[in-house]
């Protein structure tokens, strides 16, 4: 019966062929380690966010006078509304955990190198879209951090020369963050996940065109590959189990761990919180933004350019890295630079979390730490280029096959 139906469909649309070539018999490297689980995990969180988000919208009211109350209505009155909201709020954090590990894995094993540049670029576009989506989503509960976070970030657009001030008013839909801002952010927060989904399809298409990289970063022969199913379906599912365990621990037992207490205070345009902090996943970039404060009137614009540049520079990473080896396993200097880069990102996050006038380590203004860490951040990309373009780094011998 099922065979007959599938035969009927296949004659008209080759579904079985697609499943066979792209899933059950799709060749995958046999040496992938667990760092390769995070792509499928990011996809899992995307599905969780879409599913919970659609149901949250059924109860949420995008109105400055009603939004905060409607979130509490979801928490208190809607059946399992607390579950929907906590899954969605923690889902945002776990989305970024998965995506950051996914990006760092790509950087360490050289997954951005030829022939995977387009695959890498699609990934960066997804990352930009995610940040926009997360930022607008955080505004929707209309708490104090929602409001003031939105005010600080949208204000950055005033740094654009000539039209900046008008641009901010246009984005706000008024002369301050207010009801029109909330409405358009709601609309865009609903739209952007579908753009993300479209980009994920392109990302997967690009992946399946060039196939997965692997921890050794070498081109594999047929004998070094195994069919995706059942080997990687079961390995990915095991990863899903572990990931869900950690995620659900937070959802059910520490649901506010990633949230600022201030966001349980309704937005009040008349009262600025003592200390405005963005969500943790924006902190390193926020630190870079604030580190440029020494250029007088150009500081704001330069800070914004540096912040956007800190992610946009990933676009040219495939051309900066000229090493004959992809994987840092065989690149001793790159490996050290990578770990310095990683620690530097953590330091930037910590700088971003603290007030900009804080003093640390017995008398050093934190902004100096931020400037140094920003320099190290961009230094990584320059050094990767220098050590590979001028043959300073001699890669260790790589195997020809596994």
């Amino acid at each position: 019966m099922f065979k007959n139906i599938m035969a009927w469909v296949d004659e008209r649309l080759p579904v079985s062929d697609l499943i066979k070539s792209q899933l059950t018999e799709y060749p995958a490297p046999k040496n992938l380690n667990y760092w390769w689980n995070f792509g499928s995990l990011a996809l899992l969180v995307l599905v969780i966010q879409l599913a919970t988000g659609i149901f949250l919208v059924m109860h949420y009211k995008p109105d400055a006078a009603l939004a905060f109350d409607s979130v509490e209505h979801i928490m208190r009155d809607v059946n399992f509304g607390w579950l929907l909201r906590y899954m969605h709020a923690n889902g945002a954090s776990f989305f970024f955990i998965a995506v950051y590990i996914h990006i760092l894995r790509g950087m360490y094993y050289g997954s951005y190198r030829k022939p995977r540049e387009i695959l890498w670029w699609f990934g960066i576009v997804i990352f930009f879209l995610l940040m926009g989506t997360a930022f607008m989503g955080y505004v929707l509960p209309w708490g104090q951090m929602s409001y003031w976070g939105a005010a600080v970030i949208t204000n950055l657009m005033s740094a654009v020369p000539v039209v900046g001030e008008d641009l901010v008013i246009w984005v706000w839909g008024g002369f301050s963050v207010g009801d029109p801002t909330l409405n358009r952010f709601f609309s865009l927060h609903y739209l952007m996940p579908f753009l993300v989904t479209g980009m994920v399809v392109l990302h997967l298409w690009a992946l399946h065109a060039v196939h997965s990289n692997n921890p050794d970063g070498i081109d594999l022969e047929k004998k070094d590959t195994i069919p995706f199913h059942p080997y990687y379906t079961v390995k990915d599912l095991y990863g899903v189990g572990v990931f869900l365990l950690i995620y659900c621990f937070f959802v059910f037992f520490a649901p506010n761990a990633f949230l600022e207490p201030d966001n349980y205070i309704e937005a009040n345009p008349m009262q600025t919180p003592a200390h405005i902090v963005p969500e943790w996943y924006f902190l390193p970039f926020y630190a870079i933004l604030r580190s440029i404060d020494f250029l007088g009137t150009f500081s704001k614009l330069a800070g914004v350019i540096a912040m956007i540049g800190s992610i946009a520079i990933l676009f040219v990473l495939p051309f900066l890295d000229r090493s004959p080896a992809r994987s840092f396993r065989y690149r001793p200097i790159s490996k050290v630079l990578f770990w310095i880069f990683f620690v530097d990102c953590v330091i930037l996050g910590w700088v971003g979390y603290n007030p900009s006038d804080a003093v640390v380590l017995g008398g050093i203004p934190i902004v100096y730490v931020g400037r140094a860490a920003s320099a190290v951040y961009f230094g990584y990309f320059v050094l990767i280029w220098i050590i590979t373009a001028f043959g300073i780094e001699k890669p260790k011998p790589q195997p020809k096959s596994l």
Partner: protein
Amino acid sequence: MTFNSLVKATALVLALATPQALLAGGAAAPLPTQDWEHKGMFGEFDNNQMKRGAQVTVEVCMGCHSVKYIKFDFLRQFGFTEQEVKDMAESQGQTKKSRMISSMSEEDAKDSFGVIPPDLSLMTKARKGYEDYTYAMLTGYLNEDESELINNAMEDDALSDSEIQSIAAKLHLNPDDPEKVKEVVTRIQNGENFNKYYPGNFFAMPQPLMADQVEYADGTKTDLHQLAKDTTAFLAWAAEPTLMERKSTGKGVLLYLILLTALLYAIKRRMWSKLH
């Protein structure tokens, strides 16, 4: 460079790097921590404590504050009778189906205190320190000995070194900053409300709770610690009435996921063993 050495180095840097601006800027004393029965994976709200906390909230807090996301009728789940709930509502000029809104109008509150008293529905979730913050606000005022110490200070318009030392120690102020201590003493003597744990110390709210201010039906002692603890626990329930449902669901979910993940791991091992 190994991963472990990196972790250690990072931890060391972070330990050294605690920002000092916060400590220098007249920050309040660190919040004392309490054991909360509803916290932790297996924590639950205690119905008797909820009844006591609700009583203090209605009889004392609601003189000025509202708990707007809770209706009086919800309190019956802790064992209050319908008549008791009706009486509580009537004490605020409300009916049992109304939300717990204070009988004091916002205008009157602003006239008396200069600010509108914040709604308490989310108080235990909306401040750093959570329940410990609320408890500290209720208990952080000067006790009798401390008040006496302050009132007797500066009789000749100057503070002696020993007075500065003892006042600074009691009030968690910096003993090396006599000007600050003097300013604090003057403001307290002028009748401002001092709370050891409130950031900035001076607070629009006069001491809200005193020992023996209410009489508990179940005979529990009514010292300040007990009153503050019961009230805070009740407000923690008001902040998230679905907390118990969340945790009991969570236990089932985690148990299921542990089993599922173990099975998936076993299948993965078995499947991949053919490869090696």
